[in-house]
């Protein structure tokens, strides 16, 4: 595999004007001289190269850090030669060509050079914020650039137009505004970038604070409790389990931290089952591992009965099976919900259950039958028990009648 393409960023070191050509060359993996030559060739065609260069300059970010590049003297001379060649080509084209090119190259060309000087200075200023050097030269260059721009625009205005006083004044104001705009573009761009950066940092900071607050309220408190009760393993396990569950639902649960804050179904089947499993976990100190497949749906009376019956089955497993883990599997289909509660515990013979035990009879069988559901019980002594609860789901029309 080849090395990944570096993102497009202007070079900070070893540049002639703004580092655009170097950046493009790094991005495309071409020799920088080729890219420069391409810009020059394009510049001879109605200044397309110069325009492209300018736009890239404004919109492409400079490299983040100072990458040390050694630019050979020869390459530097080559680049200068190419730039001169470009200017010469453009001027020749202007001399040979029509008026349009003539007046672009003339005063507006001067203005463009001025703008380039100022922009380059702005880039330098950005760079100096890290290195911490500055000086009067910078000011001089900026002023010189501004003078160039002003002169170019003025010549353009005087040379090309014969207008009345009012029109002239209006145009002068307009062109001045334009000039100021052109000169301040780099600062605007930088301002916008810094604002975006700052907003991003603020968002990250808020999130960090929220996470810290939550961890403090939950995990740290629980850990403190665990340390104080470390001699009671049962209690420690209970605390740890409860905390794990809480943190999990915060991280991964519906509407949890890692999700977009979509419509979390508070009274959904999934949440109700999870709550039931959590209660049994806490009360009987066993692990209840629920797996839910299918889309969540809101609870109605029938599904609530299913959850309650399922909870009773979990309680039975926790109390009588004598195991540390109960599996719960719920499959939500379009027309039916199936719930399996299973343990690998002692098991029993259903025929041997004494008449006076009401848990299974009333809480599971009775409840399911009243709501039109079915119960299937399979238990083998020594191998465990599985309770299968099935509830048909009513559509809205059926529920309404």
């Amino acid at each position, binding site marked *: 595999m080849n090395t990944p393409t570096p993102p497009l960023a202007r070079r900070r070191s070893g540049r002639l004007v703004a580092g655009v050509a170097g950046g493009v060359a790094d991005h495309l993996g071409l020799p920088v001289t080729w890219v420069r030559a391409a810009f020059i060739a394009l510049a001879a065609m109605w200044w397309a190269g110069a325009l492209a260069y300018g736009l890239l300059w404004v919109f492409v970010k400079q490299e983040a850090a100072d990458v040390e590049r050694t630019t050979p003297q020869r390459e530097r001379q080559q680049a200068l030669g190419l730039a001169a060649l470009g200017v010469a080509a453009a001027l020749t084209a202007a001399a040979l060509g029509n008026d349009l090119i003539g007046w672009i190259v003339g005063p507006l060309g001067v203005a463009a050079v001025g703008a380039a000087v100022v922009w380059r200075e702005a880039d330098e200023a950005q760079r100096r914020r890290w290195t911490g050097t500055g000086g009067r030269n910078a000011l001089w260059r900026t002023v010189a650039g501004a003078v160039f721009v002003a002169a170019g625009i003025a010549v353009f205005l005087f040379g090309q137009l014969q207008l009345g006083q009012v029109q002239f004044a209006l145009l002068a104001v307009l062109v001045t505004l334009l000039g100021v705009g052109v000169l301040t573009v780099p600062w605007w761009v930088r301002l916008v970038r810094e604002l975006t950066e700052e907003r991003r940092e603020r968002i990250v900071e808020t999130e960090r604070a929220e996470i810290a607050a939550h961890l403090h309220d939950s995990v740290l408190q629980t850990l403190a409790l665990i340390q104080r009760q470390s001699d009671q393993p049962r209690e420690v396990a209970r605390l740890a389990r409860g905390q794990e569950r809480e943190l999990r639902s915060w991280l991964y649960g519906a*509407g949890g931290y890692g999700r977009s804050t979509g419509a979390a179904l508070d009274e959904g089947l*999934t949440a109700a089952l999870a709550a039931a499993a959590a209660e049994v976990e806490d009360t009987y100190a066993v692990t209840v591992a629920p797996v839910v497949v299918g889309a969540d749906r809101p609870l109605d009376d029938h599904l609530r009965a299913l959850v309650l019956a399922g909870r009773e089955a979990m309680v039975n497993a926790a109390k009588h099976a004598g195991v540390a883990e109960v*599996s719960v*599997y719920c499959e939500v289909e379009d027309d039916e919900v199936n719930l399996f509660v*299973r343990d690998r515990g002692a098991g029993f013979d259903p025929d041997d259950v004494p008449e006076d035990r009401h848990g299974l009879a009333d809480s599971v069988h009775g409840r399911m039958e009243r709501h039109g559901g079915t119960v299937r019980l399979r238990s083998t002594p020594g191998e465990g028990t599985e309770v299968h609860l099935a509830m048909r789901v009513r559509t809205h029309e059926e529920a309404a009648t």
Partner: protein
Amino acid sequence: MTEPDDQKIIKVFLVDDHALFRSGVRAELDRAVPDVTVVGEAGSVDEAVAAIRHHRPDVVLLDVHMPDGGGAEVLRQLRPELPDVVFLALSVSDAAEDVIAVIRAGARGYVTKTISGRELADAVRRVHAGDPVFSPRLAGFVLDVFSQKPGAAPPGDPELDLLTRRERDVLRLLARGYAYKEIAGELFISVKTVETHVSSVLRKTQLSNRYELSRWASDRRLV
């Protein structure tokens, strides 16, 4: 590869960014299980890639969540190069997209970190022998990913993307907490057949790119 190698010691490599967890697993495996030995451990993706290249373990226990790319990244870098090394995802994560991503990158199974040392050793033996290992939760994830209604699925190669009825039955029982042996008894098939079905589910999960599984799973907010 197919001969029973009861006598051979299985070399295991641990990848997890929590040193405490690594030392816990190492202690449990080294102490209690004679035929499994931990040959090395790593706490980051780069470290893991270099060390696994060097140690050539039989089985890699791979954490799903790590700061610099996670288990999927390790798999991406090493799978083509080391086809003989088997990866088993060992995760605390409950997010379907994380787990499915690692499975699709080529892990041969997935178990949760609450697993006991004995069960973990058993899982290591099974993946080493070439059989996939699914926890009930992973079976649930996979069922959910493949249970799209026929109308909603984009048209494509049905043999590749849809589970057969039998595979679905096997997965359902897995999700209900059955062991492979119990599934075999329940469906009146051999354990080997169960393993074959689970293998083909794993293959389909790895090959099924068209569904954008992880996005789908997160859209449904699977827990």
